[in-house]
């Protein structure tokens, strides 16, 4: 039987970016806070020290810093007519495990999503009318618009020391920044990062095609930085070991050395690591959370009573816990009823690999996770996508995030995958190749959802989460359209050869694509189509709040960490109001 523990005012489940932000912000209330993290403690020293951390096999291939699927995984199928089977090893996406979560091994790309991304339904209706929306697409607004989130985006950018250049300062368009972004009140806290040759080639080509290139917003420090909380960051070394690694220089923003130690230093905050939450226990009416049950490193079970529960695990983990706990009504794709598991979405990738002559030196190993030159000319809100026959768009960029050779040894199409010819092609092209990539948006559909698997269980005896997901024609059109733009940019660079990568025919869980899973617990204004209200409070259980990308009603053509951080601050403010008057913040 579970050991009963002393009640806490607030229990936070998961200690990554959002759990860290919530713990630090809510600590100011003086209430007692218990944070439960399923993985172990981690710190820059000793866990991410040079040169040990510069190990591609251990971290990038064997996933040392990520979720161990031997304990918890999910099942996957492309559609409901198939039998879902377990994801037996990590592939398509890489959730974190341990203090700092996936925010330890991210690249540091820190976007503000475009105003369109926060209200795609409203903007589509006003611009094109209802007829352009495909029948099964569940296009939904967030319930909170960009302008309301702007101060929270700002707060997260300054927390992270984002390097970049404003493109829209209080409505004034600024050349060299992202002219398609929503208006911002002030510039980024740090100047843009240094540019690589790949970035310079992209910028020149994009400009000559009439596009609007700009340096990507990066939470890799272009210079040493002290954030508003007084946390010191080192300057980036451009070492090329960013994504899938921890940073030895504290030059990549991460919760583990910023918000988490600040929270942990408060006497009213207690962090318990290796504390794996099994479920949230509700009262008999399922309208109030009373406690959470967790298992410690030794396998002992504990029940931690709480006045308020914040679910801040990874997007998929939050949805899993809601389904296991009975928080909100599970989504039924046949009837369309229910909300938990609804609006699961991902992203779609396409692009071009650009091969140069031997006089063009790319030096792909010099880079940083978020170092890139981008265009948003074909992103969601920037152009007339309906004219092209689809809703959405994507960000196009040439990243310089580090050409580590197990993962990066490009060869032209038609080259054998092994043998003498392969080896010669690797040597010929390794230092003379770059990529132009599209990170495409994916809207939500009736058929794409998350629920509990009927057959497979995790090590703790719980049903696995089941993912049912595939691409739809709308996204495939978009990915192909943007692949053509990527090819055009590659050709404009003066390449010897440009290899086009078009839309995938089906979604596969095997190759890595992005750790940008969204939805499953969408926020919104309508409790029949969203699991959370606009403050990320669950409609049905008002003392449970949920953070992270599971709240996004659909996916965008941009990395999710910026809006995840902004929403965490937005939710912290809402919870502070809730604590003064514990009730639903929006009447259902």
């Amino acid at each position, binding site marked *: 039987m579970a050991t009963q523990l002393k009640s806490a005012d607030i229990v936070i489940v998961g200690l990554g970016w959002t759990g860290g932000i919530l713990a630090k912000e809510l600590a100011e209330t003086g209430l007692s806070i218990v944070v439960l993290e399923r993985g172990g403690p981690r710190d820059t020293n000793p866990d991410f020290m*040079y040169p040990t951390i510069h190990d591609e096999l251990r971290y990038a291939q064997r996933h040392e810093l990520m979720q161990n699927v031997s304990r918890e995984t999910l099942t996957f199928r492309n559609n409901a007519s198939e039998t879902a089977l377990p994801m037996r090893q*990590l592939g398509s996406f890489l959730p974190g495990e341990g203090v700092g979560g996936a925010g330890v091994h991210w690249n540091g790309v820190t976007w503000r999503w475009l105003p369109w991304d926060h209200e795609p339904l409203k903007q589509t209706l006003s611009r094109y009318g209802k007829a352009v929306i495909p029948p099964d697409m569940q296009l939904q607004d967030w319930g909170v618009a960009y302008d309301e989130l702007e101060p929270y985006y700002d707060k997260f950018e300054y927390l992270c020391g984002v390097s970049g250049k404003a493109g829209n300062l209080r409505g004034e368009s600024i050349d060299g920044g992202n002219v398609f972004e929503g208006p911002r009140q002030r510039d980024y806290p740090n100047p843009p990062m240094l540019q690589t040759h790949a970035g310079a080639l992209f910028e020149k080509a994009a400009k000559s095609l009439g596009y609007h290139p700009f340096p990507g917003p990066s939470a890799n420090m272009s210079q040493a930085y002290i954030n508003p909380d007084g946390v010191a960051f080192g300057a*980036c070394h451009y*070492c090329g070991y960013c994504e899938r690694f921890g940073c030895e220089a504290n030059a990549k923003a991460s919760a583990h050395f910023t918000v988490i130690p600040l929270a942990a230093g408060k006497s009213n905050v207690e962090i318990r690591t290796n504390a794996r939450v099994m479920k949230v226990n509700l009262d008999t009416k399922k309208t109030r959370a009373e406690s959470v049950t967790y298992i410690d490193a030794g396998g002992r079970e504990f029940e931690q009573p709480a006045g308020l529960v914040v679910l801040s695990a990874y997007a998929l983990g939050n949805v899993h816990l809601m389904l296991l706990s009975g928080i909100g009504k599970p989504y039924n794709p046949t009837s369309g009823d229910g909300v938990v598991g609804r609006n699961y979405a991902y992203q779609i990738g396409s692009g071009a690999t650009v091969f140069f002559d031997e006089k063009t030196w790319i030096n792909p190993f010099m880079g940083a996770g978020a170092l890139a030159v981008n265009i948003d000319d074909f992103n969601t809100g920037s152009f007339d996508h309906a004219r092209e026959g689809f809703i959405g768009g994507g960000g196009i960029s040439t990243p310089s995030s580090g050409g580590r050779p197990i993962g990066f040894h490009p060869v032209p199409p038609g080259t054998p995958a092994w043998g003498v010819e392969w080896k010669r092609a690797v040597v010929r092209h390794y230092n003379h190749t770059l990529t132009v990539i599209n990170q495409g948006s994916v809207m939500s559909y009736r058929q794409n959802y998350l629920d509990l698997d009927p057959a497979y269980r995790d090590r703790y005896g719980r049903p696995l989460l089941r993912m049912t997901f595939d691409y739809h024609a709308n996204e495939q059109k978009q990915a192909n359209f943007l692949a053509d733009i990527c090819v055009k940019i590659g050709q404009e660079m003066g390449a010897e050869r440009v290899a086009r990568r078009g839309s995938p025919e089906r979604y596969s869980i095997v190759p890595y694509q992005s750790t940008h899973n969204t939805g499953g617990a969408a926020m919104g204004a309508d409790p029949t189509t969203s699991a959370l209200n606009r403050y990320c409070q669950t409609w049905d259980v008002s003392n449970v709040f949920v953070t992270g990308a599971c709240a996004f009603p659909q996916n965008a053509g941009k990395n999710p960490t910026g809006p995840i951080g902004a929403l965490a601050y937005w939710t912290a403010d809402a919870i502070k109001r809730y604590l003064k008057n514990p009730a639903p913040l929006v009447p259902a």
Partner: protein
Amino acid sequence: MADDEVHRRDVLKGLGVTGAVARMVATASPVQEAAAQTAAQPHAHEHPQPAPRAGQSADGYRFFTPAEAAIVVALVDTLIPKDEVGPGGVEAGVPIFIDRELAGAYGRGARMYLDGPFRQGTPQQGYQLPLPFADLYRIGIADLTAWCAKTHGGKTFDQLSAADRITALKTIEAGQAEFAQIPARTFFGVLLQNTMEGYFADPMYGGNRNSAVWKMIGFPGAIGMYVDVIEEYRNKHYEVEPKSIQDLS
């Protein structure tokens, strides 16, 4: 002699002594005991320790049997042959790399979900065999050996000519080889992936010996300090002796 063995084992069993303890009781000398352990057989005096093979690495194989190792060496040599451009997979140490990986946590599937029920899925659902990768190799090599024997007149893969090895692997890669127990392409895919990993990984894992593969492609290895050169070397050849993690430790 066989009768003696059976009799002695029965006696020991009656005393409640079996397995390794039985060997200790039964073997007369420490030398015999060591030989028994090495041969991993219960009767050391019947199975003398194999003589060291010419050219065998001093650090030896931990997972592969000598026969398996010979096949893996031939496979790796076919996937990444030696030529004037740079080192082959074998001289880079890739077979030792694969052996070490399979002998450790990776080979045991420490980060794999291996619960049933098992069924064949779609390509989009990924790996669905009930085998951690060490087992996949053991069975895959046995299947490959049987397939080679059938298609090449009783020969094992390492006994084939270089040209026949290439043809055999192309057949497997194309999904045109029928293995007895597991899909041939699945085994080939994991083998190719591990071969690439060993070839390009830090030398401390046994492959990429002396960072020779990094030298070949111009990758500086674990150094990762470019803030002062990234602009200066735009569109210029940055040539530097690669450094491994041990070089920098």
